[in-house]
């Protein structure tokens, strides 16, 4: 029997994750012990300072190149650090939105419509468990793109998913819809976890080990059974593709996006995508790069279907959050082209695009929280008509976000799309580029439809109003708008920064 090896941990390299975990635990204590009056503000300050401290630590370890942070279970390298920083920045912007507790139920444990719920609403007994839940999810997301064996990867996946399932059910209004979304998310998420584990088991069978390094060397050695490798990759991919909402594994996302409280949707749509694609990039670029015969054709087909399907179905949507959900499905297809590219340009482009898309997404959903009537947010796109007249600033900013999604020049979306498509073209995946360009043209249609409604139609007098944004929400909206435009006009510093660091340690 092997002697037990005492694990050596590099705490400095792990500190971003550990800080967030510690913050989450303190948050739980705050929830239990701090008085109602001061709880909200305490949680907000705690969460923000945790995230900022963690971001600071990420900055400190930016040059690290280590594959032995935790017994070769975690790799800290350039892309990992960049992805962690992206997740943290997106989270910080989202937290301002989440802090607007008006969107969350006062007491999640109370049944919808029960007396208990009414009492807690009237007495203002607002619980704020969403903050520690967010932090737990973030810690999982931080671990996900740096995990370098299949077990750690799975643990990170569950760490980020479980809090999100809960958060999806916290909506204050239309609680049944919200709880249905949470349940659906949970069930389909469990499915995908099962697929993931199944694939991981096959890969273990193939390589005799779970670390990416040994899988990579087994692939290079080529002595294993290719069928087992193929099955393993296929199931592992299915598990991951579920998380990013690629067609045909996307069915959960419109329902969950619609049902979940909008701040949670914003956070989930943006940060989860960065984490999940970060992990995918690492697996496919390091562990399975030499086995590209097996997964490139498979992912190419998925990417093309995802882009076209997402764009086409989005046209038919009449709910703004569902439309954004399908737009995010189409974007998942764009990000997949970055994975398929399998070259240095593809890696840098993916990181840039993930970051800029995440910021734009948070901003767009933040605007959605502002357009309301007496019973809450207005999902129906037709009732957004005339918004440009009533609140020109909000409408202009939202139009800016939509143009960024559509990839119009001078927005970050254009630079992202350009760089990711040119990387894919360079690797020879011309059919994906053509599909991407076509679906962009289709997608432009429904983004422009919303702009037409906002600016060229007269308002219907039905009590729709834009609430004056609170300072918190305003911070989110303005910060994301500024970043979206700045990255469109002056992307050079960030691109250079990413190019300097985006090299995987194998």
């Amino acid at each position, binding site marked *: 029997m092997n002697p037990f090896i005492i694990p050596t941990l590099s705490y400095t390299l792990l500190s971003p994750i550990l800080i967030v975990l510690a913050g989450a635990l303190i948050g739980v204590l705050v929830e239990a012990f701090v008085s109602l009056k001061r709880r909200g503000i305490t949680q907000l300050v705690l969460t923000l300072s945790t995230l900022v401290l963690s971001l600071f630590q990420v900055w400190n370890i930016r040059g690290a190149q280590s594959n032995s942070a935790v017994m070769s279970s975690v790799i800290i390298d350039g892309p990992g650090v960049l992805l962690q920083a992206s997740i943290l920045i997106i989270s910080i912007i989202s937290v301002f939105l989440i802090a607007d507790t008006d969107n969350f139920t006062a007491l999640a444990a109370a049944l919808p419509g029960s007396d208990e719920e009414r009492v807690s609403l009237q007495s203002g007994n607002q619980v704020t468990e969403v903050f520690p839940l967010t932090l737990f999810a973030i810690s999982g997301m931080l671990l996900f793109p740096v995990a370098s064996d299949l077990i750690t990867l799975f643990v990170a996946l569950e760490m980020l998913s479980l809090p999100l399932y809960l958060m999806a059910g916290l909506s204050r209004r239309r609680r049944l819809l919200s709880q249905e979304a949470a349940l659906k998310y949970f069930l389909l998420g469990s499915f995908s976890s099962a697929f993931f584990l199944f694939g991981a088991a096959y890969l273990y069978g193939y390589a005799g080990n779970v670390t990416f390094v040994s899988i990579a060397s087994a692939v290079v050695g080529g002595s294993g059974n290719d069928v087992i490798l193929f099955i393993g990759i296929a199931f592992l991919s299915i598990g991951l593709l579920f998380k990013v909402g690629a067609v045909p594994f996307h069915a959960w996302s419109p329902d969950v996006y619609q049902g979940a409280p909008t701040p949670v949707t914003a956070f989930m749509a943006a940060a989860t995508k960065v984490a999940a694609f970060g992990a995918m990039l690492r697996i496919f670029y390091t562990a399975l790069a030499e086995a590209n015969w097996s997964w490139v054709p498979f992912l190419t087909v998925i990417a093309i279907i995802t882009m076209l399907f997402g764009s086409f179905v989005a046209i038919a949507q009449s709910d703004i959050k569902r439309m954004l959900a399908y737009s995010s499905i189409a974007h998942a297809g764009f990000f997949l082209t970055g994975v398929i590219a399998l070259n240095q340009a593809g890696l840098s482009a993916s990181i840039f695009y993930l970051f800029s898309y995440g910021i734009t997404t948070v901003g767009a959903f933040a605007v959605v929280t502002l357009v309301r009537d007496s019973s809450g947010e207005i999902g129906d796109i037709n009732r957004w008509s005339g918004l440009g007249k009533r609140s020109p600033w909000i409408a202009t900013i939202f139009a800016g976000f939509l*143009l960024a999604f559509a990839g*119009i020049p001078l927005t970050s979306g254009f630079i992202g799309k*350009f760089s990711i*498509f*040119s990387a894919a073209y360079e690797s020879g995946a011309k059919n994906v580029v053509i599909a991407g*360009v076509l679906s962009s043209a289709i997608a*432009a249609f429904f983004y422009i439809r919303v702009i037409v409604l906002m600016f*060229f139609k007269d308002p219907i007098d039905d009590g729709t109003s834009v609430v004056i944004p609170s300072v918190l929400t305003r911070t989110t909206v303005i910060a994301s708008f500024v970043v979206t435009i700045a990255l469109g006009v002056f992307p050079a510093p960030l691109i250079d920064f990413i*190019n300097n660091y985006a090299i995987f340690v194998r």
Partner: protein
Amino acid sequence: MTLPLLGAGLIATLPKSDGLAAKRAALITTSLVAIATIAMAVGFQRDNVDMQFVESYKWIPSFGINYALGIDGIALVLILMSTILAPIVVLAGWNEAHGGRWSVKTFYILILVLETMVIGVFAASDLFLFYVFFEAMLIPVYFLIGGYGTGARSAAAVKFLLYSLFGGLLMLASIIGLYVISGTTTDGHTFDIIKLSEIHNSMSSTTQNLLFLGFFIAFAIKAPLWPFHTWLPDAAKAATPGTSVLLLGILDKVGTFGMIRYCLTLFPDASKTFTPIILALSLISILYGAFLAIGERDIKRLIAFTSISHFGFITMGIFAMTSQGHSGAIFYMFSHGFSTAALFLVAGWMISRRGSSTIADFGGLQRVTPVMAWMFFLAGMSSLALPGLSSFVSEFLVLVGTYTRYPALAIIATFGIVLAALYILIPVQRALHGPITPGNEGLRDLNLREKIAIAPVIAIIIAFGVYPSPILNVINPAAAHVIAKLGFTDPIPSAGGK
């Protein structure tokens, strides 16, 4: 060449004021830009075929993208045309913005942003920068049509935007292709159009053809060439007269300009491959536009269809691959800008006075409003290329240039001129002569502002018709340079030729 910045900088001062102040500020800005451009044109070295007034800053170094500007003779003429038309449009459409959805100042901000981008599009010597201007230009036009137009304005604006975006995205695919190929051949990735024009030898002919098509379709939609033209009549009808001038007179030139600057120089072999098809499309455009114009009752749509016919001539001149054809096509772009401007502006005044855009509603204007009627007559004559007006020179050059290489084509295209006489003379006769249609008795003639606005347009049309050499001297070296680069020599008329 800091003109684009100048325009943009002054926009920033605009929002403070409202209404009249915004108009005045816009007028002063556009006039200053025009004067500066003319000053620049004086300093332009005519015989130098390289890019002049070059400036270049690093923008996104890791992709090899520069903010690089520079102009040759072709670009200079078009920039000159655009900047001269801009103050005229502002002055002529003094009250246009009042029917709009938003405030007057927004209208002028949009116009100034548009002018900045148009100058950028013509002056860009970096392909990526060109594309950025090319696409971003759509947004102000979209809001100008959709926000300030008449009738089915939002539908027309959306149609315009979707057509253009579709073309633009095809071009984006081609640009990505070029970018990647440039990485394998020259020293690193580049978007510099001079370097890019040297890499076509290392492409397979299939690649070159496909990339060429991406560019060409985008430009053909913009220009618009049959069968990509259907957005134009709607957009022209819905837009205000001023916006129509900007759209047809200036923006559409980006399409034909792009064909010369990008299609021909970047893909010479593919251009030759597709020449027969494109010439056929041009011929169809000439005749099809003319026939539809004859049957059209709405005056703005009529002008749009005549433009389709004119753009057919321009494209034919470009792809005839002779230096006269090229010079003619470029000069055609210039004079078409002014004659379309004259037509649209006068038509706009007629429409706003009469409250209708149907030709049949006008009649006897010659007696009621003599100045306006004469202006419309002159503009119409310029559109049918009456000798002595600048459009005659250009049309003649195009036809001569085409005849030396494709005699049959030129002869058929000449029918376009006959048809032009029909589609111009019929409305002229209906609107200006004959008995005064009831309801027209009380129409006012042009006021001083309108006279000042139209005067330079008419002056330019006549002046360059009588004495075109200042413009041709700028155009000819540039056109000859493009043709020479393509490896063509002008066919020498055989001794027995008649």
